[in-house]
């Protein structure tokens, strides 16, 4: 077991961890971050996508022991983030989910897409969603939902600086 100290959803945590524990398993167990869903454990499906140090990342292929000093946000901690709030509404209205298993990863990736690209054309949007697999929706509702949210966030950017880099749009 090795000691680590990191911040999860705004709260600092000091604990020990078996070095082989992935960040995904660590967060699910230690922080009740059950929004993290494991679909492959090799970094392809995107179901485990979270934010590490301001950037989206796969938690299934990060090791908890390597996260000393890191700032981690999961969907649980982003509940009141303006982009996530809008995306939840958009996914609901546009039927962007069916079974819900891919949804947390989709929301976090969608937030990053909007922060990076604003309201991209559909081809760019679909390519940017390539790292998140959905088996239920055929992506139709998801694409509509992200477009729906992008338009509304463009009109009413979050109350931070409105800059496009994710660091400025960090979840609060």
């Amino acid at each position, binding site marked *: 077991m090795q000691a680590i100290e990191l911040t999860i959803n705004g709260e600092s945590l000091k604990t020990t961890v078996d070095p082989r524990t992935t960040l995904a398993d660590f967060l699910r167990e230690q922080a009740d971050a059950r*929004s993290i869903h494991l679909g492959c454990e*090799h970094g392809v499906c995107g179901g485990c996508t979270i934010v590490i140090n301001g950037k989206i990342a796969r938690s299934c292929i990060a090791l908890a022991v390597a996260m000393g000093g890191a700032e981690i946000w999961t969907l649980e901690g982003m509940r009141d983030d303006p982009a996530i709030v809008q995306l939840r509404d958009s996914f609901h209205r546009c039927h962007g*989910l*069916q079974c819900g*298993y891919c*949804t947390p990863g989709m929301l976090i990736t969608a937030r990053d897409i909007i922060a990076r690209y604003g309201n991209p054309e559909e081809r760019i949007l679909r390519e940017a*969603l390539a790292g998140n697999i959905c*088996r*239920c929706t*055929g992506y139709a509702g998801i694409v509509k939902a992200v477009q729906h949210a992008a338009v509304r966030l463009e009109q009413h950017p979050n109350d931070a600086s409105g800059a496009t880099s994710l660091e400025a749009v960090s979840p609060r």
Partner: protein
Amino acid sequence: MNATTPLSSKKGIGSSILRNEDERLLAGRSSFIADISQPGMWEVAFLRSPVAHAHIISVQKPQGAQNRVFLLDDLGEVLPIRADSQAKGFRRSDYPALAQDKVRFVGEPIAICLGCTRAEAEDLAAQVVVEFDELPAVSDLSQCRDPAYPPIHPGWTDNLFLETHIDVGDVEAARAKAAVTLTHEYRMNRQAIVSLEGRGVMTYLDERTGELVVYSSTQFPHVIRTALAHCLNMKERELRVVAPEVGGSFGVKNNLNPEEIALAALTRRVRKPLRWIEDRREHLTASPHAREHRYQVTVHADSNGVVLGLEASIDVDAGAYSVWPWTAPMESGMAIGFLPGPYAITNYRATARTCASNKSPMGPYRGVGRPGACFAIERTMEELAAHLGLDPIEVRARNYVRPDQFPWKSAGGKTYDIGDYQASAVAVRRMIRPERVAALRERYAGTDYEIGLGYATYLEQTAHGTAEWVQRGLPVVFGYEQAALQMTPDGMLIIDVPIQNHGQGLETTLAQVANEELGIDPAHVVVRHGDTSLAPYGMGTFASRSMVMSGGAVGCASALLAKKILKIGAHLLQVSVDDVRLEDGFVAVNAPGGAKVSLTEIAVAAFLRPERLPDGVDPGLSVVASYRTSKDSGAWSYGTHAALVAVDKGTGLVKILDYVIAHDCGTIVNPMIVDGQMMGGLAQGIGTALYEEMPYNFDGQPLASTFMDYLVPGASEMPQTTIEHLSLPSPITRYGIKGMGEGGAISPPASICNAVNNALRRLGASVNETPMTPERIIRALMDADAGKAGA
């Protein structure tokens, strides 16, 4: 979009209301099987066979781990999974919960290993030493009768589960009269099913209730309970099966799994909570597989393209064991039964062989045998059209069963209820605009791109009843549903149903049915499902049955409840029951500005203030109802798909430029949800057509064990799509609803393959195999070049 029906109200049948189930899923806070745990729980890793076919000589547990590694004999009284088809000549394959004498596919479970963490359990599994005496592996269905390969199961003389035949009409006469006879081979390769969440089981003993509790990511908890009770020799009341939130299934969670039996038996023995979460490698290699069909089809037609007769030879690779409850031959039975498709073919002769092999067993997957049958018949129709130089829709039109011919008893032995296939085909031809093809070909002339257009019409038998299941020869028959409804004292409605919602939106659509009968706001309706302790007995969600069957049960139950509510309401309003109606959460007098009383007030009277009830009306407001369709032959959805593609000869990649669907699923409860099911099915159909394959090598090793090798479509692989809804209400279901969850996945392999062949025809190249990988397309182009060079 034809969304409304005479029955519709703002939130009832026909409305695209938003889903009740979204909030918890959008918060990421629901509980899937990996979120369910118990104090003192051990994590399970299965030791799975690394070889495809072998005798087990010995199993050596690691030192000091005897109480954490368990074999079949350690599980106590356990019966194997026995899925016997009633069909004559079927050969039995008993499927043990853990392999004991023999392993029959790579990934077959041999031992359960326990650890405090899954990692530790895997460490333990790696230390178990198994000595195998390897046998030749049947790795291709062409080997199933080859004496060089030993029978996989005891008492078998070769590796064939079953052979069936159909011979109706007079095929020989058709052959003699035909102006054209064409024979082609078509092939769909094996694939995995890939729900995003894998399977999983958690078991524990609830000593308060005396139940062995089995949480399983399953589609049909009651049926699993019945099966487990049988395999473990327990009473049904001693078992509780719960499906938590389920992350997609599409059929892979619709079988009795050896893992379910093994964990339940072990918890019963060691009295510890246990949990197994299937990982992706297990899912790809060792969960039930799908789609592996081969067809040789001969069509006899006149010079107008009217089919006079059809012959077929069908082979299905059903893997190492017969899955329960479907049985190994169900897939080939559906293939042979559905091959005539929507066409009025009366002379039909076919043979279907269900082969056994040393591969993971084949189980149902969205569409089941129909994607293969549709592939074979729809390719045949377009080859026929091309051969005769006729328009493919025109040829179909000359062969479709006509609206005045229903009910139609097909040559495959099915009874089609109602349909207008031509309307769907004509609609789709209008939407795809075939006149564009010439202009597009000109635009891309001289480039690497060949443009093609292809169609495919499908039939989807849904919500079939008892007699149909009996005909299929399954060990259990389905064919009805139940629903339990209860009002709460504060005016909400709780619906307990044994179906299992895993993305279909049934927590919303069943509430819409309740709204239709009771006028209650769907937001005040809670649908609980997946728990054998809450819901009355029922069959679960599969075969596109839930909206019809469960919707029917909820409708019947709601109607019964409505009668009582109206009586109480009329009494409270002091008018005759003939003078009131249910609307928007109230019982209201049938006059403008009439008095009304809310459902909440009625519930208070029924539960808390029974002195307010009329004479002859008992307290309480709950009802259990069961429902069957008025005929058992199924409610037949159907539709036509069209694909416009550009085949890149330089890369072998296929780009879908436009995709259109015109389908008929009768009365639509929620158009938004129907569109979602269609798009999801289309994505999986595209997966089958272009991307998904589980190849096995000569030693029976599955070759695609991660998402690096096994590709599923992402957002960029989906085409722009237009869907049009036609609607001929079913004559045999309540509200005229038909199921539709699978149709989206049935046609795409056929429509896309037809389009690719249409594109490459002028080069003399053809592809008749899915997935149409770049390699297969390039090889087809090479073969065509070589053919020309040699000519």
